[in-house]
């Protein structure tokens, strides 16, 4: 049985994993880079060890150093979180060799699903739908026509040697096929010196829908339903929800069966996610499998009622799943907003810095998975996501209303965050009605990026507050007042000093 877990990660996910460990009576070990000495996961863990310099390759990706700490601290298992080493088959193997349990799938499953072409072949063999198209190069018009005939319009013609949108043509009408093909080939020839192309089905208004999987080492595999993750910026998810507003009960069952089959095809155990792309007509295709815990896992936990980290640890302990598919239901609706330290008005430019003030939302149906606190300096080296806000509601409408309320309460100053932008998303008609796809942010630019509205006299009031603040500061300086003027922060200061978690 696992007694002590080393968490090979940082940020919110490291804290989140340690929370479940604490509930299970498992001792935790943090590893940290030189700039992360003050990070929350270091303060939260029972033990913490520095493993190197700030750049990830010298610390959080340093396999041998992490294993050394695991052995030194007597950890019997390693949880990799997401990102960093979580999908590194070599790391999973090295853990095995050192006799340390890797809380995740087998190196074989990681490797198979990690290579796009191998994964695609494995899925085709298992009868899972994949995006129709050619894998081999096409060099003649005749060949191209017969392929297009087979997969149906619209299609995307892409240069084999391509990149940067060159040699790429979208074909919607039959009459456009030949001219598009010629244009793509000549563009490819001049850009890359190679006129061969391949053809892929073009998914119009794509939806990103994924299935949460849990599988034990005894061969039982279940799915914990879908998550809708179509609100994305720069191919990164921003808002996720479950159930998906697009899904029908019948489709849910059908996709669930395919998701389970996909996991079984690689003898999967642990928690994993099967990602699908779905069109407006509910045709869906396998995209990839993430062989790890996902950022957005809490919405599934909230709606299905299962702690996925505890489930991962139980599976690593060789325990069989204590439930079967028939025992699992979706209850209510959950939404997650990822809060990034970024400037949403400047093309989402990251904005690291010192957190000056933070007020988190409380009340019914709220969960905050974050890791920053007042006075904490967010380092420049790692991801810009600082916290996740997860809400639950009786139904979708209730969840959206609650999310708006929670975003209203969430206040972080010192760095720019995406909080206001997220609130706008909640107000966007396409989101409210549930009719959105991965083009959502692009399609709603005007509404999402409008200048902040100012109700009533708020500008004058802002000026008044500035006036009073400035004058009282000046006054304080004159009186050379004792530092006791900021006594209200004493509790927080001592909290910081003595490691009491303000979370």
């Amino acid at each position, binding site marked *: 049985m696992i007694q002590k877990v080393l968490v090979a990660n940082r940020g919110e996910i490291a804290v989140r994993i340690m929370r479940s460990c604490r509930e299970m009576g498992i001792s935790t070990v943090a590893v940290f880079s030189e700039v992360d000495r003050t990070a929350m996961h270091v303060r939260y863990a029972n033990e913490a060890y520095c493993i190197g310099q700030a750049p990830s390759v010298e610390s959080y990706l340093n396999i041998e150093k992490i294993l050394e700490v695991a052995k030194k601290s007597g950890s019997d298992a390693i949880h990799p979180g997401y990102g960093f080493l979580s999908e590194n088959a070599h790391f999973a193997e090295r853990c095995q060799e050192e006799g340390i349990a890797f809380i995740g799938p087998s190196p074989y499953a990681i490797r198979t699903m990690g290579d796009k072409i191998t994964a695609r072949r494995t899925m085709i063999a298992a009868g899972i739908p994949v995006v129709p198209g050619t894998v081999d190069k096409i060099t003649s018009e005749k060949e191209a026509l017969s392929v297009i005939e087979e997969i149906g319009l619209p299609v995307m013609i892409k240069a084999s040697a391509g990149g940067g949108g060159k040699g790429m043509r979208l074909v919607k009408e039959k009459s456009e096929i030949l001219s598009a093909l010629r244009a793509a080939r000549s563009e490819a020839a001049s850009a890359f010196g190679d006129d061969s192309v391949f053809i892929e089905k073009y998914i119009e208004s794509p939806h990103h829908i994924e299935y949460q999987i849990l599988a034990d080492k005894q061969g039982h595999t279940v799915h914990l339903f879908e998550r809708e993750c179509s609100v994305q910026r720069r191919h990164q998810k921003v808002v996720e929800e479950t159930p998906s507003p697009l899904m029908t009960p019948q489709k849910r069952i059908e996709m669930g069966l395919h998701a389970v089959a996909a996991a079984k095809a690689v003898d999967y155990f642990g928690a994993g996610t099967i990602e699908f792309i779905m069109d407006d007509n509910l045709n869906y295709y396998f995209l990839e499998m993430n062989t790890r815990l996902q950022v957005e896992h809490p919405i599934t936990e909230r709606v299905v009622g299962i702690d996925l980290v505890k489930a991962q640890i139980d599976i690593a302990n060789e325990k069989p799943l204590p439930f079967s598919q028939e025992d699992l239901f979706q209850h209510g609706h959950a939404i997650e907003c990822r809060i990034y*330290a970024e*400037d949403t008005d*400047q093309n989402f*430019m*990251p*904005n*690291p*810095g010192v957190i*000056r*003030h933070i007020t988190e939302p409380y009340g019914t149906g709220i969960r905050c998975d974050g890791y920053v606190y007042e006075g904490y300096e967010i380092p*420049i*080296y*790692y*991801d*810009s996501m600082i916290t996740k806000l997860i809400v639950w509601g009786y139904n979708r409408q209730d969840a959206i209303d609650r999310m708006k309320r929670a975003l*209203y309460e969430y*206040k972080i*100053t*010192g760095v720019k965050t995406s909080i*206001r932008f997220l609130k706008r998303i909640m107000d966007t008609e396409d989101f409210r009605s549930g009719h959105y796809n991965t083009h959502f942010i692009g399609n709603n630019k005007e509404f999402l990026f409008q200048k*902040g*509205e*100012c*109700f*009533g*006299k*708020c*500008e*004058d*009031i*802002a*000026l*008044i*507050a*500035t*006036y*009073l*603040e*400035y*004058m*009282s*500061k000046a*006054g*304080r300086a004159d*009186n050379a007042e004792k530092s006791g*003027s*900021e*006594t*209200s*922060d004493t509790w927080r200061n001592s909290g910081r000093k003595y490691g009491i978690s303000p979370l």
Partner: protein
Amino acid sequence: MVFHPYKLKKMQLELITEERTAQLRLVHHDGNQITIMVDDVLYTLDVVKVGKGNYSILLDGESYNLELVEGANSREYTINTFHKTFKVEVIDAETRYRRKKGSVNVGSDKTVRSPMPGKVIRILVSKGEQVVKGQTVIIVSAMKMESEFKATVDGVVTGIQVSEGDVVDTQQVLVVIE
């Protein structure tokens, strides 16, 4: 923390936002009750400072919550309300003097600065090189994302203040173009 208006001197201040310049003058105060002129509008409000930089203001029963974050110097503030962020600068005697002398903002167009902390990944120009407006001169990485910073004017690179691999701060001057 209760705000102590008795410390206030009845004084006029000029405040500048991105959109306007306003004159503010405290008319009267009694406990939390404050009467103040903003240009030609008279406000009577109930103001309490509830935390560091945190104000609760009631105006005709309507509740406003504001957070003030002091900027690079004690005259610059960022004020967050739920819907909008304001940048306000207090114009005191010293600032007015500097403005008169025309020494404010000099050179700001000719320098390339980093709007956020980060690490210099690549410097694409060298000293003495001719650059055109819009040309990328330096790449800074922060939080796994690389941002390109461009020349804001045509000119010649007269100074490169950083080296590749350096960690830079917000608003730090990276490259000077004359």
